[in-house]
């Protein structure tokens, strides 16, 4: 029994030690303080772009609406006894601290509703209003409303274009994926592209560059302005994971 207990203690110590060492190692990793890497980026599938389930990379969510206050039971119900003497009404007491809190919360709630209504009107007047209603935002932002976000049509179309231009030469026998990224301008044109990182396979690298160039040319020929609710996408790289 002593031996069993000792081995249990040792195992526990080992596990704790491993956890501590891992945490220290990862926190001191040179890349930890940098921006997101491929593995940490929000990942959406194919052209349909399902929202990632990774809670760490979720976008800020809309706060839940406060529930209206439930009706309070009356303290002086109406009696059906005709002989009962009427209860004297007490004069109203000065407002307590609790009531003040409630009033303040109600005012906040009213302001939030007003902001939401203003925002909603802005979206309806904007270019992306219809798209937003149809599918929700691709990145799980506050404009998404579906339980499983199917992706914004604007981004779906962009992904579809990239997929249409992606072709792997038949003679390429290997398998894997390459990552090519674009930066969108507000007018929908592509203002920059890059391979991240190069695969060192000249055929695949050339194929990715060809796809990005064709995508750039297509967007140049027919630019599609980024809808207002996706303006954030113009400040970040949009990367395509090209399989081969």
């Amino acid at each position, binding site marked *: 029994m002593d031996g069993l207990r000792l081995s249990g203690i040792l195992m526990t110590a080992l596990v704790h030690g491993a956890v501590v060492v891992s945490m220290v190692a990862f926190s001191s990793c040179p*890349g930890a303080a940098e*921006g997101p890497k491929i593995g940490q*980026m929000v990942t*959406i599938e194919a*052209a349909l772009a399902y929202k990632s389930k990774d809670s760490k990379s979720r976008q800020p969510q809309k706060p839940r609406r406060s529930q209206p206050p439930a009706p309070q039971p009356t303290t002086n119900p109406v009696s059906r006894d005709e002989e009962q003497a009427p209860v004297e009404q007490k004069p109203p007491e000065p407002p307590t601290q609790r009531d003040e809190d409630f009033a303040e919360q109600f005012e906040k709630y009213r302001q939030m509703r007003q902001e939401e209504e203003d925002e909603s009107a802005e979206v309806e007047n904007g270019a992306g209003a219809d798209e937003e209603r149809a599918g929700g935002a691709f990145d799980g932002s506050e404009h998404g409303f579906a339980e499983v976000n199917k992706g914004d049509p604007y981004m779906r179309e962009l992904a579809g274009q990239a997929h249409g231009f992606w072709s792997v030469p*038949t003679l390429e026998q290997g398998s894997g994926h390459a990552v090519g990224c674009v930066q969108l301008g507000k007018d929908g044109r592509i203002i920059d592209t890059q391979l991240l990182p190069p695969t060192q396979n000249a055929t695949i690298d*050339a194929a990715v560059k060809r796809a990005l160039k064709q995508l750039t040319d297509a967007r140049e020929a027919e630019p599609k302005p980024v809808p207002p609710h996706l303006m954030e996408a113009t400040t970040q790289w949009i990367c395509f994971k090209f399989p081969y």
Partner: protein
Amino acid sequence: MFQVPVLNRRRLAAALAALTATLALGHASARAQQQRAVVIELENPKRGLYPIAVPRGSESDPALAAEAESIIGFDLEVSGWFDVLDPRSFLADLGAEGLGVDPPKWKDVGAFGVIKYRVTRAGGDVVLDARLYEVEKGKAAVLSRSYRGKEVRTLVHAWCNEVVQYYTGEPGFFGSKIAFVTRSSGGKQVMAMDFDGHGAHSLTRNSSLNILPDWSPDGSKVAFTSYMRNNPDLYIVGAGGGRPRRVSKHPGMNTGASWSPDGSKIALTLSKDGNPEIYVISAADGQILRRLTDNRGIDTSPVWSPDGREIAFVSDRHGGPQIFVMNADGSNQRRVSRNGDYNTTPVWSPRKGKRILAYTTRDQGHYDIVTLDIETGEMVRVTQGQGNNEEPSFSPNGRAIAFASTRKEGAGIYIANTDGSGKQRRVYKGSATSIDWGPAPRP
């Protein structure tokens, strides 16, 4: 006691170059990583051809350069891997480039690869200097070869085989030969030609029926059946023609010869006892070594597997003709074709690690070529809706199939990709049967 590391100038330059490259790559990578990004995963990529530019060689004999350009273009396109770009789109100054390349100019026209060459005459010979560039890798050639010989065609085929080997790791089939049978006045002749249809010539010169040719594994001989002595006997003739040698003359059929992979034996159909059965004979003297089949059905068209362990053949023992496979000693005979009621002329793919047969099948009154993976049962239809297509034969690397066709574009011998993709090309115009694609040319 201690060794001091010595950095000579070349090593120092190399080290600095490596450091610079590392820093540059690191900077570019960090630039993207320090910004937020969204990744969209794409699925199911399309498969396409490798775009390659083959500009006509400058500093060359004009006639030879034009011929070389034509042969390179045909070889690469028929390989099923390359898309040879239209020269009219080229932006580069070919005269200034010479045998080199200016990569951005070729990137702009969509080329992934560029072939440059110079072909000249020297004495009585032709000299070919050729370079292959991968545009993504810059100005340095990834493949460089020089050839000297009598025919530009032979040199160019050798170069294209090197190009295919570079990209795929597999040998090309350019320069290989195809044997076939054509009608002649009063009979049929065994013919041979380059795989691209060039230089067709007759291997037999008699007025009888000469049919069913089969190349020896080394490509030096062709076995065939001839009625020249009023019985379908088996003969062997040199690849260049000449007087054939009769090796099997049993009464009745001596037909459908197939060389064993080591060239020492021949499997064929003999009907000396009445019913056609499959035998193995010595290629040297025709002596019967073993009888492989023995049943009431007709057993014909034996063909040895690339590893020599199995033989595929046709039998009507279950009714209509179907494809069967047996061990090389005749044991374990089993039917492998399950489609339709008429399947004939099997051939094995030479691809290593695969057990794939191609054969002729009849479907809705037409004959077509299919392939069957014996391991998985997967079938691929190589031809469909293009007249009758029969008697397939694999290229030496198994990537292409030659077959006889009578389609509206014209009868002849066509070459198709084994997977059924891409364009099918006619390499011989005119009626042709008994197609047999020979081995790869010796380097």
